[in-house]
């Protein structure tokens, strides 16, 4: 029954996307589907990236967390986009462990709280919520840009999203720009020397490796762009 309901919503969304407020609970549920699929697909690569400069478990941990989040949202789908993000964030905190659990959990929980009780929001409101979430990550983890962390993908993504929206771009194009910036940001961590997290213990030897956290962050932003384009 739930599947039928979701399909109906999806059809309705695609048929009449509200350009003013394209982000509703169904949109973020589709994002979660897309993000979970991406994390599952890329889990071996995330773990591989985490081997030389971490402890070879990032893919495993993210996969466990997103599968649990998907189950939680399927079991009791929250009616608001903010509610979806808060539930995903809480589930990640309870299931991922490591630094990624609290950091990704805080990112999504903070963003969800920022969206409040609204039924549907604009891309600009989503951008503001993501900005608040990223600020939460920076405060909790204490990292700054250039430290070779997930912030190096997330901050450029939010900046690109802001730039594209300010230039009058639509939600789908703006999120595509955010995804491209996140990918570039993740790639740009290769020459960086890690200053936070476990990779920091390697000092100079952390140089030359792409940061697993920045890589998974880029995956999540790309899933957002895919969802907005309609092929998430």
């Amino acid at each position: 029954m739930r599947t039928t309901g979701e399909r109906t919503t999806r059809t309705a969304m695609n048929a009449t996307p509200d350009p003013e407020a394209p982000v509703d609970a169904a949109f973020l549920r589709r994002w979660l589907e897309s993000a979970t699929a991406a994390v599952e697909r890329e889990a071996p690569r995330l773990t591989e990236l985490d081997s030389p400069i971490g402890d070879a478990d990032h893919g495993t941990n993210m996969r466990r967390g997103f599968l649990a989040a998907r189950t939680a949202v399927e079991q009791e789908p929250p009616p608001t986009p903010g509610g979806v993000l808060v539930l995903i964030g809480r589930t990640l905190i309870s299931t991922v462990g490591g630094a990624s659990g609290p950091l990704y959990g805080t990112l999504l929980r903070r963003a969800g709280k920022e969206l409040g009780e609204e039924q549907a929001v604009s891309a600009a409101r989503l951008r503001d919520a993501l900005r608040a979430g990223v600020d939460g990550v920076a405060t909790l983890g204490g990292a700054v840009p250039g430290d070779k962390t997930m912030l190096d993908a997330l901050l450029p993504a939010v900046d690109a999203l802001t730039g594209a929206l300010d230039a009058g771009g639509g939600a789908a194009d703006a999120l595509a720009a955010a995804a491209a910036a996140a990918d570039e940001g993740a790639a740009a961590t290769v020459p960086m020397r890690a200053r936070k997290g476990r990779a920091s213990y390697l000092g100079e030897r952390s140089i030359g490796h792409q940061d697993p956290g920045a890589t998974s962050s880029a995956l999540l932003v790309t899933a957002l762009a895919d969802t907005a384009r309609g092929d998430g």
Partner: protein
Amino acid sequence: MKMLINVAENVVADALRGFAAAHPELTVDVERRVIVRRGAPYEGKVGLVSGGGSGHEPLHGGFVGKGMLDAACPGEVFTSPVPDQMVRAAAAVDSGAGVLFIVKNYTGDVLNFQMAAELAEDEGVQVVSVLVDDDVAVTDSLYTAGRRGTGATLFVEKIAGAAAEEGAPLDKVAALARQVNSASRTFGVALSACSTPAKGGPTFDLPDGELELGVGIHGEPGRERRAMMTSGEIADVTVEAVVSDLNPDGPVLVLVNGMGATPLLELYGFNAEVQRALAERRIPVARTLVGNYVTSLDMAGASVTICQADEELLRLYDAPVSTPGLRWGC
């Protein structure tokens, strides 16, 4: 890489089921991943809770029992536990005298314990957290996540546990734990990388004929690689790293800790060299513990922890302890 497991996803749960069967004196909640001393909470006693990624056994679950921890929260392999586990553990061991969280300094552990402390306090449990950061291999703390918590965790848990067992209040137990940590330093070396079940093979390459100096306990490489050395040469490097940072001026506790795959025969031989290196520096050794206590799965190698101990610390170290991993005087 051959491993004595069923499937990688279940190694922690399988180990907890086996641990529960071997230790009926402990309450093991396999599903929620909390190990609690039977009979807890003890009236008027401060509860000691620690935890961290699995793969370091007997740390921490093996140190639950009389005179040491009241509860332990094992995470996935090399992954910190989640806040729910510590909240549950705190509730299970709090007699009203408060709970001490003993947290090894890793970003994940710090964040998850911090969230747990806030949640537990919302539930009315008084929590004080103590950070263990004894690893001198981390030199530039400004540009890293800070010194890692390694071998000193055993001394912190043992000595704070003995104080709590005697009925010391929370502030006193926490102060002792901090004193032990600040009086302790550790340096580790790896002769081989370890293999995590999730990866199914070594987490880094360490060629034959080389060793890794200043290695952590999570399969993370150290800071320097050198051609393989003798036990005596390794002891010289290790003791120098620890002593030059601690500058002890009195009797010390020594932990010669195996990383998991180094035979006790080699560890005892290494300890002889460590004692020689300490004697050359005129550092009196009060107690020595040799064995696999803070391990890194199947890594070969060892770490040396030195803790400068005053009479009070020595007395608490000698106090009776009865846990799966450490037992004397009982």
